[in-house]
């Protein structure tokens, strides 16, 4: 009797379990949201936009930016402990890139992750526009600015690349490479459309977002990649005439903490030491300690060359704020020892004093001065000269030189400095187009030295090969001696991408 009861109990249990089965197979995704329901209001769109900005702060963005901006030019040597310390950077600096270069694929992957995030925002925005039209339009403007920025670097480094302006579905991953012109066209469209809707400036709580000035400046840079001087002049004129920017009175102050996002800042990559994790979980950057001398607590990369040092006029005080010399003593009892560097120099612009450094070396709160007003002024001078307006050009060129002249030749951050400068920077007066062009190019090189614009300048000025080969001869080095104008203006796209595309992506010639 008793046993029968037990049996019926089990049969009941079994049947109960069977009937609840459909519920049983439903499992919630804890702590995650399905993308179908996430983008419900502009607030969520804004949170998505944050992740479109985020790749700018990745080490896989700023280290390749440094490599492709400085190391592959006559301004900088790779550095590190020796040639085999990060061989991918060394290979690039010697124009020996093979398609499996990790610095190159890091850059590619990061740029495309930013493009994907921007594309999602641009795609989702129209559904939400009615909720807060002004805000949604601004968000779309920011997303377009970012997408333009990411494609700018792709086109500049790799040439024509797969071009997606909506988030790709898995079925769409059979894109071929667009032509270089198609990508540059898209970059111009994105920056123009962004410039239309973005505000001139933001309240303090939104500092760091893309502005109208940033979009117009980047638009001009994009035009210059294809020598569109007229269009570039128009875009730059908008920035200059907006009256949003002024040069900081002393060149030496630009790279100090208190002048971050200062009056000269057009676009800065924001970094903050939050002690919040590892690699890309931090909000800080690797750059300052990565480029600090190995003997002064850093990793010793990105060393200014003798050629860059010699570019400075003897009376130019900007030299001491650009380069550290053996024997300079900084506050905090920090005596510079560059003896392990391939050149005796390190980059002072990104340096942090011992008292300013965060303990975790990859998490330094230092903003990358991505686009300064001085850069805008010098570009403006350059296009004015090209467009036959040398006198106007001189005005803007000399604005930059005047500020340099006003710079304190004694670095207040140093206890003692090895190089003493007697300031002597006469204004430029020539109105000969060719002479003035060379003066502007010189000014750009010293004013913006080590700020990741050298390759951009050499490429658009179409003298990259000539400069590198001359550099190789002059310093008897293999850096640049093998520069081939036929293909070294572009770098190979990552080999794994070519492989995985099963023939859809064709490698750049020469690689």
């Amino acid at each position, binding site marked *: 009797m008793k*046993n029968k009861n037990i049996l019926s109990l*089990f049969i009941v249990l079994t049947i109960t*379990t069977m009937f609840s*089965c459909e519920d*049983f*197979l439903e*499992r919630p*995704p*804890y*702590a*995650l*949201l399905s*993308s179908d329901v996430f983008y419900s209001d502009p607030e*969520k769109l804004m*949170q998505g936009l*944050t*992740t479109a900005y*985020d790749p700018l*702060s990745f080490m896989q963005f700023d280290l390749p930016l440094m490599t492709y901006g400085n190391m592959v030019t006559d301004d900088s040597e790779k550095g590190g402990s*020796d*040639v*085999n310390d990060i061989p991918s950077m060394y290979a690039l600096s010697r124009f*020996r890139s*093979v*398609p*499996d270069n990790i610095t190159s694929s890091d850059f590619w992957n990061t740029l*495309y992750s930013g*493009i*994907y*995030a921007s594309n999602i925002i641009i795609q989702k925005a129209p559904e939400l526009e009615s909720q807060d039209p002004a805000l949604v339009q601004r968000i779309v403007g920011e997303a377009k600015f970012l997408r333009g920025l990411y494609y700018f670097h792709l086109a500049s480094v790799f040439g024509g690349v*797969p071009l997606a302006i909506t988030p790709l579905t*898995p079925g769409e*991953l059979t*894109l071929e490479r667009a032509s270089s012109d198609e990508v540059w066209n898209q970059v111009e469209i994105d920056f123009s459309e962004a410039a239309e809707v973005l505000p001139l400036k*933001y309240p303090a709580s*939104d500092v760091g977002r893309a502005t109208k000035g940033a979009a117009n400046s980047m638009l001009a840079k994009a035009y210059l990649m294809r020598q569109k001087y007229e269009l570039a002049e128009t875009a730059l004129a908008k920035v200059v005439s907006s009256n949003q920017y002024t040069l900081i009175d002393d060149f030496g102050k630009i790279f100090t903490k208190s002048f971050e996002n200062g009056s000269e800042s057009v676009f800065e990559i*924001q970094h*903050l030491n*939050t*002690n*919040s*994790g590892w690699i*890309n*979980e931090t*909000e800080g950057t690797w750059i300052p300690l990565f480029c600090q001398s*190995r003997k002064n*607590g850093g*990793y010793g990369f990105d060393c200014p060359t003798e050629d860059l040092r010699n570019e400075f006029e003897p009376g130019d005080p900007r030299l001491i704020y650009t380069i550290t010399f053996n024997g300079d003593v900084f506050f905090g009892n920090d005596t510079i020892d560059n*003896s*392990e560097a391939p050149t005796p120099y390190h980059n002072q612009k990104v340096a942090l004093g011992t008292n300013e450094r965060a*303990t975790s070396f990859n998490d330094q709160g230092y903003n990358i001065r991505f686009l300064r007003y001085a850069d805008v002024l010098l570009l403006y001078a350059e296009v004015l000269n090209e467009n036959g307006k040398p006198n106007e050009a001189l005005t803007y060129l000399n604005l930059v030189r005047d500020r340099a002249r006003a710079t304190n030749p004694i670095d207040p951050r140093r206890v003692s400095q090895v190089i003493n400068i007697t300031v002597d920077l006469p204004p430029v007066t020539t109105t000969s187009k060719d002479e003035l062009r060379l003066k502007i190019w010189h000014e750009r090189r010293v004013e913006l030295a080590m700020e990741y614009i050298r390759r951009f300048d050499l490429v658009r000025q179409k003298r990259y090969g000539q400069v590198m080969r001359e550099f190789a001869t002059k310093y008897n080095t293999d850096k640049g001696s093998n520069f081939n104008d036929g293909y070294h203006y572009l770098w190979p796209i*990552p*080999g*794994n*991408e070519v*492989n*995985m595309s*099963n*023939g859809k992506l064709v490698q750049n010639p020469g*690689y």
Partner: protein
Amino acid sequence: MKKNRCCNDIKSLIFLYLRRMKLTLGLIILTFFSSMAADLYSQTTKINLDCEDIKIMDVLTEIENQSEFRFFYNEEINLSSRVSVNVSDKQVSDVLDILFNDKPVNYEILGRQVVLSAQNEQTEVFQQNSISGLVTDASGQPLPGVTVFLKGTSNGTTTSTEGRYSINNVPENGFLVFTFIGMKTQEIPIDGKKIINIILSEVSIDIEEIVTIGYGTVKKRDLTGSVASISAKDIGVITVTNSAQILQGKASGVMVTSVSGSPGADMNIRIRGLGTVNSNEPLYVIDGIPTSGMNNLNPNDIESIEVLKDASSSAIYGSRAASGVVLITTKKGAVGTPKITFESYMGVSTPSKSPTQLNSEQYHDMIQTAHLNGGTKLPKKLESEYEKGYDTNWWDEFTQKGVVQNYFLSASGGSEKVKYAFSGGFFKQEGTIKASAYERISFRLNSDYSITEKLKVGLNLGITNSTRNSITEGTQSWFGLVSEALNMDPMVPVINPDADVNDPDYEFNKYGYTSITDSKNPVATTARTFNESNNFKTLGNAYLNYTILDGLSYRMNVGIDINNALTDNFNPRFYLTPSEKNSLASIYRSYGYSQGIVLDNMITYTKTIEDHNFTAIAVFTSEEQIYDRFGGSKQETLTNDEANRVLDAATTSDQISGTKSSNSLLSYLGRINYSFKDKYLLTASIRRDGSSRFAPGYNWGLFPSVSLGWKINEESFFKKLNVQFVDLLKLRTGWGQIGNQNISDYAYLSLIKGSNSTRYVIGGVPLQGYAPIVMGNPNIKWETVESSNFGIDANLFKNKVSFSADYYIKETRDMLLQVPLVKYSGYPSDPWSNAGSIRNIGWDIQLNYRNLISDFKYDLGVNLTTLNNEVISLGTGGAIYGGKTKLGQVTKTEVGQPIGSFYGYVMDGIFQNNEEVEKGVQPNAEPGDIRFKDIAGTPDSNGNPTGPDGIIDGYDLTYIGNPIPDFLLGFSMNLTYKNFDLGLFLQGVYGNEIYNASKFFTFRANGRYNMDQDAYLNAWNGEGTSNTIPRIVSTEKNNNFRNSSFFIEDGSYLRLKDIHLGYSLPSSLCKVINISNLRLFVSAQNLVTFTKYSGLDPEIGSSTLLDVGIDYGTYPQPKTLMGGISINF
């Protein structure tokens, strides 16, 4: 010198053994157990009686009904007098006192037996009812330790060391049962005999062996599917440190590889080839509970392991059996007197191979040569470092002699009503590399109760606490400590003599560091490694079995698999150099909880109608898995002391995170086993599974199977042939479909999440962003494996020879795969998809021979497995690249090729002189650089391949090696002569290639890192000096170390996995010390390896299939010498 060292090893071994075994304690425990077993029952069993005026005899019967007490008495005692008894919760002795208070009867309680005797006649009673005899084996050798008991009672004994037994108080009409492991159990009717001598015959090839097949068992000779079965006897005397090693080389069709030689490392088990690019882990089922692996199981607790290889046998596990099923049964109790076993061993491990790196002089020379050849600057400190005169062999410094020790104590026994087996074990293994170790404490209790004839319940429970300390090993994205040690500068001392002894962090700051490379002192790294993971696992099930009618029974089974995992990590504060330092000590701790619950309801019906014999089952089962984890980290502790290695001791950078996920499975299944005239066999099964891992609409899958067997030897025509040497000849064939749902939970959903890696600073404040983290595929569905099997089983020459061969074809369709996508997608992760088909074809062959020539018993076994793997289709997708190394992705999976084939440039020797360079197509090369083969150029406009085009580019990449062996081999031999036993076991693979990616670290002579001495001595050094190893140079433009056949090596090997020699104490001696059996043994694992492979170890496991056979800098398998003891009481 070497000899001397060896002697020291043995001495230290014995010393350690005695010190750690704590034998005394063990013996005390044992004594306690045996006396407890006798007295406990009578003291704890309570009797309730309420009888008015009944016969004493009936009172005794009632006591027998209530308990397991059995009364023995002769007819002289008068038990028909009437009594009244009213007691509750009394011990049996109290009741007997009442019953015989005024009667001339004595009683004696012996365990569960109560002997009644007339006063003054006690001794006679014993003699009159006792039986004695001798038990021998077929050769006449006495058999000690045979269990002899009276059927239906717990009255029993074991034979003495001379094979003699004596058993008292047996009724004349009873039966005596004789059981012994490896022998056929015999039941002998007593029929009033006083002496019964019997010969036990060996169960030679175990044709009556019962094989577990999932939701039931079947006689091995009635099997129709392909099942490899390994029993405790086969596991026998081989010492394994990891349960999965039991399968290595023992079962045909099963490939077992260690992922690493690190203690506690996982083993990869691959059944019949590589079925899918996704996970190939088989399903593990321990006592009916599906679980994730067998790593936490104590090998001593295993009774048998069955591997279900073909679809017809594994389809009963439906959705998760695509990669085969490993069924593990733990040891259960058996009727008889308690058996107590103590086993222990202790040994010392060393790396099975040690590399030879450059000494200081060679290193100094190599750096000079490299920079001279490369025209680059010498490291500034080279000379000053060299002049210090240190010459450190870092391999010797960072490896150690690891002690391995194991203790195991078990007791088992039981009566018809209750059977039990419980055990406790402790295992500890130190790694051959410092800072790695593994420790396991395990307990198990298995018990079965027959409540009534019809109702049985039981409980199996295993608890394991394991602790693993591990070092960083080489992976796809990280070079491990092994590579680090091989690269370290030998001019550096282990301990820096200039280190400040008064430094509070001296313990971590005392180490030497290199000033000329970025390698880290590996001894310092191991000293700083505090990386401990602890897992507490509870795996158990409770069942109820109710026989409804004869042949019809219902079974309910509830199983749990609960894991509590703790991870502890501490990075001490230290400072060696500006780049080798950690300024803030940090602590990380995480806690993970996983809970699996399974509920089975099963009906079994067995029926025989004349020649038709069938068993049918129907099962409903549901499973649920919940996984929950949280972790936290902090930085900055006051000191590095052990007391400060807790979160509360740290003050900054608080971080916390947690995840949770869950999945469930519902299944209905049925199976029928049918045989006709014991000649024709049929098994058919069907299972329907619903899984939460797929989107609604794609939840359910159906998995059918059928298999047939034909025992030819039972046919009359065969019998007429009179081939007497054939004992069994059976043909088998089977077909089935099984599934795979092994994808991440929620793979069908696109998901968004915010975390600290999706923040960006705006307005000076980090803003929280939300980003897609998973790209979902709403159409994802089951992967299906369809397999066919053709097999033959034969037993010959009185079962001395057994042979089994299977041919299989296994095709995986809708393969579940996270296809690596182009990065220009921008996706945060690769979505899951059903991509393509893969076919595996091969043979499993097993041959055993066993014989006995008087005192000499031998047993030989060989098994062979062939593997042939081919990708049939990749759906709409193209080739899949994988195997990420420092050299890029080195494997390609493409239609027509095996999975994960190595793909790269072909090395075509070394450029010997400038003429050869000029003739070649590598403009940047110099003499001494590697020449690569120009195979093809840009395809023509129709996409057809073209011939060599004078440029080495992506079109010259080709297949350069296959990681899948042609065949796997296992060979075992066991010899027994009188008291000695000798066994050896070889395991090998043949015909595979290894991608030796660690050569990137050990062969690059770039004037920076230490390197392999052979590579240095044989490097190209002028015309004609080498055609295989490039020159020593700091920087070269040819990119010699690109992905090419330079890294490909023959991966075949044959390894002596185990060799052991045992000695069992003669039975006369055993008797003196009152034990039934004692065996002493010495054994060696991985003693010799025959291979051409130049790396540290050719046995390379991998976590994913796209990087099988890539050596990332393997932690080599340990070579272990050990000695041990096994005692039965």
